């Protein structure tokens, strides 16, 4: 998944354009969205766009979900260890 993201970014002027990835169909599992976000981050993508998966949850759950996503993109999540690129710069 990380490499697929990297290939999509490469295909978009080799990183010279911002590429944000949509979450796709509604997902019950928050972890799936988080794993997607880690792959997008590590593959050099610029972020996630998430509609139904957030606003169809109760507000408290949606806020917790967004908090986790933001932490992932800031490299502050627990899985951001070795190899996780922080502040990936499009070149």
């Amino acid at each position, binding site marked *: 998944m990380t490499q697929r993201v990297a290939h999509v970014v490469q295909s978009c002027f080799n990183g010279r354009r911002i590429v944000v990835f949509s979450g796709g169909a509604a997902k019950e599992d928050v972890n799936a969205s988080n794993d997607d976000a880690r792959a997008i981050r590590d593959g050099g993508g610029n972020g996630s766009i*998430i509609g139904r998966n957030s606003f169809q949850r109760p507000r408290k759950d949606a806020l917790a979900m967004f908090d986790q996503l933001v932490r992932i993109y*800031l490299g502050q999540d627990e899985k951001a260890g070795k190899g996780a690129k922080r502040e990936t710069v499009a070149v």
Partner: protein
Amino acid sequence: MPGWRRRPPARIEKPAAVVYLSFAPDIPGPPLRPGGRHEHDPAGRQILANYESDNPGSKANLARILLQGRLGGSGKLVILPVDQGFEHGPVRSFAPNPPAYDPHYHFQLAIDAGLSPMPRRLGPLEAGAATFAGQIPLILKVNSANTLTATKDQAVTGSVRDALRLGCAAIGFTIYPGSDQAYAMMEEIRAMAAEAKAHGLAVVIWSYPRGGSLSKEGETGIDITAYCRAHGLPARRARRQGEAAERPYEQPEARQVYEKQRSPSIR
């Protein structure tokens, strides 16, 4: 009063009073976000520099987008788009969480979560434009589809003038590169992007592989995904949205190239 109602203005993200734009990212300069947590802010400076032909107005609006929320200045974005009430219908969209029937709910959710700019259709944007003015940059989604029609096309439902009137940072537009209407959609956004950029707005493209001879599985094929993303490029787009590719190769011609290059890593 529900807990998500409007908060005092104290919650507004600290505005970027001064935005430095750099056209030479390799030259040391001030950070994009004064006092930001990113010392030299390479991400933001590099991103702006990549949009080489855009005028200062479009770059400033792109900077507004990149500086918003908790990810401001990081070069990353987490976006809450809400056009599902139109696209999938109110019940399918909002019944699971009834407060979401209120257009203000989504504004407040995006603001409280510290998210990046918010894309919405004209109606919902107008419904909260005054209440939330200045609290989060807006992207006017200027075309929309519903699920009542079979054709893979979208109607133009907003204008550049609407975006300017509502103080938006950008317009957003969906194209379906696989659709029989794809070329017409591209011509629509070419004209609208030119107008938007002439007025200093940024442009966001949603590019979905849909319609035509594409299989359902092929919609997430890596060749199709990468190809459709690249469609956002010729017409001077600011940002594009890609669905995460889940399946290899829809087109035999592309498969041959991928396999010849031995790129199992992207399979």
